[in-house]
């Protein structure tokens, strides 16, 4: 019999028909009887005291039903790092002070959107403008304006990672280099903006439909900030139109619509406009990066010192995690005998920076991989060879941090090397750049302070053999609904169409922490597998009774066939066994439970994905314009569960990461984002996307369901670095300041021409 009958086969996404027919109902589409529409008034100042807010005129406008301000809240400062109260610093609806342009100060509910928006003009806010600070390197100086009273020199969080003796390492080094980088911010640009429909009823229950990556987190955070019991709140999110890290924290749409609804006992819908989405949600953490690296002349890595200052923006948000992960993934995927990282997250009067796909690792990978190519070039070593020489391998332990079990890095390097060779001699002004990465499959941290297992699953098998699978995970497009159904079907031994997935409703689904940090396949997947195994065991008990085999024989189910493993022709149809099993269980459906929480899995994650990406790019030396020609990625996500899903994730990650590399940025002037729209903010379109080739390197990860690991976020890590390296090899210039715009390329080309030699280092 085939090893697997369901996983690793190309299947239709189980939400596919709903999506291609337009039937899928997103929060954006929800319309309830008696519903009102809300709009939010936002601060025009980056830093100011709120002296007075007069809402009388707005309230009197025909069609306006309620206006709320910070005074209508419990004054709770919330944050997603709930375990660390000092990091819970965001009121969302500001009470006495605003700290970034766009921070909410009031919200209106009215009979239609236009009336709500008009009412905003009638709210009078008196501000006392305070001096503001925008650059973290300025904010950290003595005497800089204080964004938060408690944070001296605006230092929000610090992180330190260290192993080995880097001073010894540098002493032994034949070659040492220092580089400074500035890696930029990025906007998530989910196609569905942040939104919520909140409905509070006289029973004292609040229901919130919202576009989210974690309905569980939103439920708990709303309970905290509204003073309600967790389970008097129901959060529903069947379809989410993109997340990418922007939608697992509590946002202004969710909070303000809830406040208004609680006041009126009517549903209130708030949908953020695209400019609000750019200015007043969260964004990728920009960083100032210093790397000092020492290697032996044969390319062996000895010591690395990293120092990072991140532009935190006005609140902690998820920025503390990004600060840690950038320091951790700075060493991936290589073995460093010694390493020291010091990271500082600095408050500034700008939009808070937080989590975005890759979570600090794309920033780390860009800097690390850029420097590695420069080192390789100096030492006359081939870029693949230097990576091979220092690459992680199965069984490697990152001292005090992580144990690498499955690791297909060296096979990935081999495959990419093969492809590069096959390209032969490239036309002029073209280059191929390579970047290697590793990434986590879900984090072990519980800064959220949940008492629950990180993932849980419930299964119920019915008389017709259909399997109800209840999960807490969220599909935001990454395909977890399909992947988890496949895992369930494979483990239980049935077909994908036998699974009925239930998700997206905190009233009926078990707890899962949400779709972030690439945790769903491994963590929710393990919980699902456990629940399926539980129910299978019960089915097999009945089958054993029915078949009466010799005790030495084991049974299994494959493709709806319950059979003896050693004698697969001897068995019973799954449907028949189920019918009798339910009778034997007092007429109760067969039920299974599963859960997963990583215990003793190191400091970061139970398992790591790996990969190597090569980008072929062309530079127009007349204008500096970059064109992507080819992109090949060899990656190791353990056992592939959902191949169409993996392919889609890889290509999508590449497009997003390429944007990070050369087209996307949020330039600001005194804290004001200058391009908060999709005309001036440039995401890649179909015409900029190159042909992509994907090479699967299969490994088996013991920590993951069927050996699977993540495959959606890690793939965002390498592209900016690979692109930068491609430009380096194409034109001999190394740009250390993202994004690599055409103008920067042109200036670098001109400088190179004047200098007459390849740039070695610079800011």
């Amino acid at each position, binding site marked *: 019999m085939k090893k697997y009958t369901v996983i690793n086969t190309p299947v239709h996404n189980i939400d596919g028909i709903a999506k291609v027919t337009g039937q899928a109902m997103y929060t954006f589409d929800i319309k309830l009887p008696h519903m009102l529409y809300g709009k939010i008034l936002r601060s025009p100042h980056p830093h100011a005291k709120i002296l007075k807010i007069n809402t009388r005129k707005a309230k009197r406008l025909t069609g306006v039903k309620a206006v709320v301000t910070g005074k209508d809240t419990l004054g709770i400062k919330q944050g997603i790092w709930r375990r660390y109260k000092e990091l819970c610093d965001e009121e969302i609806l500001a009470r006495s002070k605003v700290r970034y342009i766009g921070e909410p100060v009031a919200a209106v509910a009215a009979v239609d*959107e*236009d009336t709500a*928006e*008009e009412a905003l003009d009638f709210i009078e806010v008196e501000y006392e403008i305070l001096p503001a600070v925008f650059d973290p390197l300025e904010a950290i100086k003595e005497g800089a304006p204080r964004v938060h009273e408690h944070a001296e020199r605006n230092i929000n969080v610090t992180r330190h990672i260290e192993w080995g003796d880097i001073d010894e390492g540098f002493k032994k080094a034949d070659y040492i280099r220092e580089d400074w980088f500035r890696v930029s911010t990025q906007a998530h640009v989910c196609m569905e903006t942040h939104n919520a429909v909140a409905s509070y009823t006289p029973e004292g229950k609040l229901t919130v439909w919202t576009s989210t990556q974690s309905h569980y987190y939103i439920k708990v955070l709303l309970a905290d900030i509204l003073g309600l019991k967790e389970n008097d709140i129901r959060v529903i999110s069947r379809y989410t139109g993109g997340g990418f890290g922007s939608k697992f924290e509590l946002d202004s749409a969710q909070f303000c619509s809830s406040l208004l609804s609680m006041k009126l006992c009517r549903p209130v819908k708030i949908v953020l406009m695209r400019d609000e989405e750019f200015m007043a949600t969260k964004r990728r953490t920009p960083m100032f990066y210093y790397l000092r690296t020492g290697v032996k002349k044969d390319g062996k890595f000895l010591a690395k010192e990293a120092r990072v200052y991140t532009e935190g923006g006005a609140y902690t948000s998820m920025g503390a995690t990004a600060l840690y992960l950038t320091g951790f993934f700075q060493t991936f995927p290589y073995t460093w005998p010694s390493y020291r990282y010091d990271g500082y997250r600095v408050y500034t009067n700008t939009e808070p920076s937080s989590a975005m796909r890759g979570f600090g690792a794309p920033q780390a990978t860009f800097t690390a991989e850029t420097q590695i190519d420069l080192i390789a070039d100096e030492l006359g070593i081939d870029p693949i060879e230097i990576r091979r020489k220092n690459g992680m391998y199965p069984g490697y332990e990152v001292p005090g941090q992580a144990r690498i079990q499955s690791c297909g890095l060296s096979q990935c390097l081999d495959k990419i090397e093969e492809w590069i060779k096959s390209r032969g001699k490239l036309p002029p002004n073209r280059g191929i750049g390579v970047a290697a990465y590793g990434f986590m499959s879900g984090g072990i941290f519980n800064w959220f302070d949940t008492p629950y297992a990180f993932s849980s699953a419930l299964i119920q098998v019915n008389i017709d053999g259909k399997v109800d699978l209840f999960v807490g995970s969220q599909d935001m497009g990454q395909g977890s609904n399909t992947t988890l159904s496949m895992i369930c079907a494979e483990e239980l031994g049935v077909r994908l169409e036998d699974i009925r997935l239930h998700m997206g409703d905190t009233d009926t689904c078990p707890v899962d922490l949400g779709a972030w940090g690439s945790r769903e396949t491994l963590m929710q997947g393990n919980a699902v597998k456990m629940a399926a195994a539980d129910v299978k065991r019960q089915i097999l008990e009945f089958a054993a009774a029915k078949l009466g085999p010799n005790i030495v024989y084991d049974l299994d189910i494959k493709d709806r066939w319950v059979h003896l493993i050693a004698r697969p022709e001897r068995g019973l149809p799954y449907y028949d066994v189920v019918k009798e099993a339910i009778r034997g269980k007092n007429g109760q459906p067969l039920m299974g439970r599963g859960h997963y929480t990583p215990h003793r899995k190191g400091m970061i994650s139970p398992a790591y994905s790996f990969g190597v990406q090569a980008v072929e790019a062309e530079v127009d030396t*007349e*204008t500096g*314009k970059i064109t992507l020609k080819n992109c090949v990625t060899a990656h190791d996500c353990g056992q592939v569960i959902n191949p169409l899903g993996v392919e889609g994730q890889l290509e999508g990650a590449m497009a997003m990461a390429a944007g990070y590399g*050369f*087209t996307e940025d949020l*330039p600001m002037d005194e804290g004001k984002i*200058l*391009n908060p729209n999709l005309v*001036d903010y*440039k995401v*890649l*379109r179909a*015409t*900029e996307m190159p042909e992509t080739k994907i090479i699967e390197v299969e490994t088996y990860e013991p920590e993951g369901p069927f050996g699977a690991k993540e495959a959606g976020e890690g793939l965002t890590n390498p592209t900016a670095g690979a692109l930068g390296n491609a430009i380096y090899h194409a034109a001999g210039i190394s740009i250390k300041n993202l994004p690599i*715009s*055409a*103008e920067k390329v*042109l200036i670098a080309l001109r400088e190179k021409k004047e200098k007459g030699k390849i740039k070695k280092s610079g800011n």
Partner: protein
Amino acid sequence: MMQDFIYLRANTVKEALDFLEQYKDDSKIICGGQSLLILMRQGLVSPKYLIDIKHLEELNYIKFASQEGLKIGATTTHRALEKSSLIKKRYPVLVDMEKNLASIQTRNWGTIGGNLAHGDPAGDPGPVFIALNAVVKTANKERERTLPLEEFFIDFFETALEEGELLIEIQVPAIPPKTAVAYEKFNIIKNDQGVVSVAASITVDDSGIKCKDARIVLGAAAPIPKRAKESEQMLRGQKLNDRLLDRAAEKASEEAEPFADVHATEEYRKFLVKALTTKMLKKSWEQAKKLI
């Protein structure tokens, strides 16, 4: 947000002109609305009366006669121009320009008249039609008039359209013999509005070396699509060679009055003007030589 307005549908040009005469500056014309609606939705433009001429078939035409040249009605869509075999044959640079303009959706509904009347110096049609020596015909209730397209653009988003006037036709003379026109814009995302753009027209003599006439028009490099007249002067009557083209391009970049924004600095824009002008001069010269 968009303000309410009184909607007036014009079924004939006469009706449109009557409305314009009646409501004057309280009114605005909408045709494809691909630029106007975006401004109206943000509350930046809020006319009391909106005169809809989208379905004015009277102004939806592409005509050509060898003496008079090309006549395009103002409500002709970009897509119609793009797909016109007549235009591909006689004014291929217009098809090139349209193919790279915005998106298919925009071109399906947006019109050439609407584009020119919007007065955006970064718009694609302006520089190309000026390089082709186009003339626009406008009309009010009393009379019609024509003026060179070059004089139609006055300032940022400001045209020579007077109160009560409607743009009704674009006239393009037949391209003179041994003349080729090339156009290109610089962008990072294909079809995006140019960071800068350059249209260049070169007329050569029978040898193909001497330049009889040159027209160089810069887009997104000044408050209006700008003729780089000094640069043209350097070429007229001269024997062309790469060095001369390079120097003319340098002059064009000096004539540019670019602004800085999130996409580029002034300096980079000037640099791009030079690079694009060099490229377009070379391209149009090459193509003109083939016509000898």
